[in-house]
C-alpha cells in the first residue's frame, strides 16, 4: 500500500513536530546579538521540574542570573542524554556565543573534554567529573557532610536501632555518603546499624517505594536515600516512620516524616566562576588528581544547605545543629581516627584524618553498616 508509507511519513512528521514543540520550550531563547552581555550556557540531564538533581541546578542558574542581572545572559538545554550526543549540544551552545558552559552531570565528562579541546577560548565547567583541561574546570559538592548530620539525627531518633538506606549504585560517591552517615550514627548511638538496599537506578519511584516498604518490614524506623525521587519519604509518611529528603526540600511530600533535607546549592559556585570570567581571571585553579574536583566545598561554604530540622525534639535538633556547625567551622572531622571498617580492620589510627584522595578510594563500609558492598 502506497498509502501506508504516506501515513507513516505523516506520523513521523507529527511526532517530530511534537518533539520540536517541546524542545522549543526553553523560556530563555531571547535574541540579543549585540547587547554585550556575557552568555552563559547550561546542559541539563532531565527536565528542571524533576524536583531533584536538575532542579537544584536550575535554582542555581536563576540565582546566577539574578546576581548579575543585565551583565549576563543565561540559557539552558534540558533532557540531554549522557554520552556522545551531548557533544553536539555543547557545540551548539558554543555556536550560540556562550563564553562559559556548565555541563551538569557526570556523564557529560568526555563530551565536554572533547568540545573543550575544539574551542580553547571558551570556558567549560563540568559538574562532578575528574577529567580536566586548560579551559575545563570541575566542581563538586561535599554531599557526604549532610549525611553525617543525618546519621546523628537518625541515631537519636531510632527506637528499633535499625536504619534503612536506599542506594542507587555502589560507586565511591554513594559509599562515601553511607560511611559518613554511619560515622554520625555511631557517634551518638553505638547500638544502631544501617541496612543498605541497592535499587540499581537513580530514578525509579515505584522501586524506591518498594525498597522502602521492604526496609520498614525489616524493622527500620528511620530511612535515608541516595536516589532521586520523593517516593521513599511518601512511603515513610504512610507507614509512620521518619526519613531524610534528597537534593531538595521534600517536606511537601512528607510533612510528618521528613526530618530534614540536604539541599544542593550550586548558586555560589556558578556566581564565583562567572565572576572570574567577567574579571578575566578564570583559571581551573589547583585541582587534585582525583574525583574531588577543582572546587569541592560543602556546608561551610553554603554549597550544601540543610533545611530546617523538623519532626524531632528540640534536644535532637540542637545536637544536629551542633554537628552541622562543627563541620562548617572545621572543628568536627567526619573521617578522623580511630576508624574501623565493618569487618574490624583498622582504617585510620587515632588522631589520623582521611584526606580527599582517601574519600574517593573508599571500597569498604565503616563500622555501623551491615553487609558487604556488591562487586
Amino acid at each position: 500500500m502506497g498509502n501506508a508509507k504516506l501515513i507513516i511519513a505523516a506520523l513521523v512528521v507529527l511526532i517530530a513536530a511534537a518533539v520540536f514543540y517541546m524542545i522549543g520550550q526553553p523560556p530563555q531563547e531571547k535574541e540579543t546579538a549585540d547587547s554585550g552581555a556575557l552568555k552563559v550556557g547550561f546542559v541539563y540531564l532531565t527536565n528542571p521540574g524533576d524536583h531533584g538533581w536538575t532542579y537544584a541546578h536550575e535554582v542555581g542558574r536563576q540565582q546566577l542570573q539574578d546576581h548579575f542581572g543585565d551583565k549576563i545572559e543565561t540559557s539552558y538545554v534540558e533532557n540531554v542524554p549522557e554520552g556522545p550526543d551531548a557533544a553536539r549540544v555543547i557545540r551548539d551552545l558554543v555556536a550560540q556565543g556562550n563564553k562559559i558552559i556548565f555541563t551538569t552531570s557526570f556523564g557529560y565528562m568526555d563530551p565536554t573534554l572533547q568540545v573543550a579541546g575544539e574551542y580553547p577560548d571558551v570556558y567549560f565547567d563540568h559538574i562532578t567529573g575528574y577529567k580536566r583541561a586548560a579551559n575545563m574546570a570541575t566542581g563538586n559538592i561535599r554531599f557526604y557532610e549532610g549525611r553525617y548530620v543525618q546519621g546523628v539525627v537518625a541515631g537519636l531518633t531510632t527506637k528499633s536501632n535499625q536504619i534503612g538506606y536506599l542506594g542507587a549504585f555502589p560507586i565511591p560517591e554513594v559509599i562515601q555518603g553511607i560511611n559518613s552517615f554511619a560515622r554520625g550514627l555511631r557517634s551518638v548511638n553505638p547500638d544502631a546499624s544501617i541496612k543498605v538496599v541497592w535499587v540499581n537506578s537513580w530514578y525509579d519511584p515505584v522501586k524506591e517505594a518498594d525498597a522502602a516498604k521492604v526496609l520498614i518490614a525489616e524493622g527500620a524506623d528511620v530511612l535515608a536515600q541516595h536516589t532521586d525521587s520523593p517516593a521513599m519519604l511518601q512511603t515513610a509518611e504512610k507507614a509512620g516512620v521518619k526519613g531524610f529528603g534528597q537534593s531538595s526540600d521534600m517536606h511537601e511530600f512528607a510533612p510528618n516524616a521528613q526530618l530534614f533535607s540536604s539541599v544542593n546549592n550550586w548558586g555560589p559556585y556558578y556566581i564565583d566562576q562567572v565572576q572570574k570570567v567577567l574579571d578575566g581571571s578564570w583559571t581551573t585553579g589547583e585541582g587534585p588528581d582525583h574525583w574531588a574536583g577543582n572546587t569541592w566545598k560543602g556546608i561551610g561554604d553554603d554549597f550544601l544547605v540543610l533545611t530546617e530540622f523538623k519532626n524531632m525534639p528540640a534536644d535532637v535538633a540542637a545536637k544536629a545543629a551542633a554537628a552541622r556547625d562543627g563541620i562548617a567551622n572545621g572543628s568536627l572531622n567526619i573521617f578522623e581516627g580511630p576508624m574501623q571498617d565493618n569487618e574490624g580492620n583498622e582504617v585510620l589510627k587515632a588522631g589520623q584524618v582521611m584526606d580527599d584522595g582517601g574519600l574517593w578510594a573508599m571500597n569498604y563500609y565503616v563500622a555501623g553498616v551491615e553487609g558487604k558492598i556488591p562487586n
Partner: protein
Amino acid sequence: MYEELLLTILLTSVPLILAATGELVAERSGVLNLGVEGMMLMGAVAAFGAASLSGNVYLGILGGGISGMLVAGIFGFFVLGLATNQVATGLALTIFGTGLSGLIGAPLVGKAIDGLPALVIPGLSELPLVGVLFQLDLLAYLSVLIVAVTSWFLMRTRGGLILRSVGINHDSAHALGYPVLWVRLGAVLFGGFMAGLAGAYLPLVLTPHWAEQMTAGRGWIALALVVFASWRPWRVVIGAVLFGGVTIMQLAGQAKGWTIPSQFLSMMPYIATIIVLVAISGRGRIQFGAPAHLGKSFHATR
C-alpha cells in the same frame, strides 16, 4: 514481617495485572500494541491531574482509564483505519505518550495527593498470612474481578469466541460476516483503558506524586507478561505476582543480607520471560495460544 512483604508484592503486581490483561485482549483480537508504556504514562498523568485538581481519587481512576483509552484510539485510527504497521505505530505511541505526558505533567511536578485508601475487609483481614489479600485497595480488588470477567468473556461467551476468531484468522472471520475492524477497535480501546488504569495505580496508590517517566519500563514488562502467560488471563495474575515477587525478594534479600548479587536477581524476571519465549517458539505457536494473525493488518478488500 512476611505479611508486609507479601502485601508489597501484591501491590507492586497490580499495575502489571491491569496492563497485561488489557494488552492480552488486544492481542487476542490480533492487534499487537507496543504502546503500553506510553498509554500507562498518559493514564498516570491524567489520573494524577484529575485527582489533584478535583481532590477526588476516584475521579482520578476514571480519568486515567479514559486517557489511556483516548491514546489507544489514536493508535486504533492508524493501525485499523489506515492499516499502518503495528510495531512501528506502537513504538511511536510509546514515544508520543512519554513526551506528551511530560508536557502535560510539567505543572503537576512537586505536588502531592492523598492516595487511594486501602479497603480493609473486617474479619477476613485478621487471618494469618492470607489476611493481606483483604487489605488491598479498590483498584486491586477490581483488577482480580476484571481478570475473572475477561477470562469468562474470552472463553465462555459468543462475543469472546468472535474476538478470538478475529485474532486467529481475520479473513475467515470476515467471510463469516464479523466486523473485524470494529471488534479489533473495541479490543484496542479496552487495552488502552486497562493500561490507563495501570498507569493510574502508580500515582494514586504506589507513589502519590507525578514524575516524568515514572512507569520506568513497567509497560514493557506487561507486554512480556502477556507472552509469559501464553495469552491466558489467569496466568497473567500468576506471572505478575511472580514478577513482583522476584522484584521485592531481591530487595528483601539485600536487607536480609543474602549474598546473591542484587543485579542478578534484578534480571531474573527478564530471564524468565526469555525462557518462556524459547519454550513457546520450540513447541509451536498454536499450542501455546498465540493468535495466528497477531500483528497482521487486515484489508477487507482481499
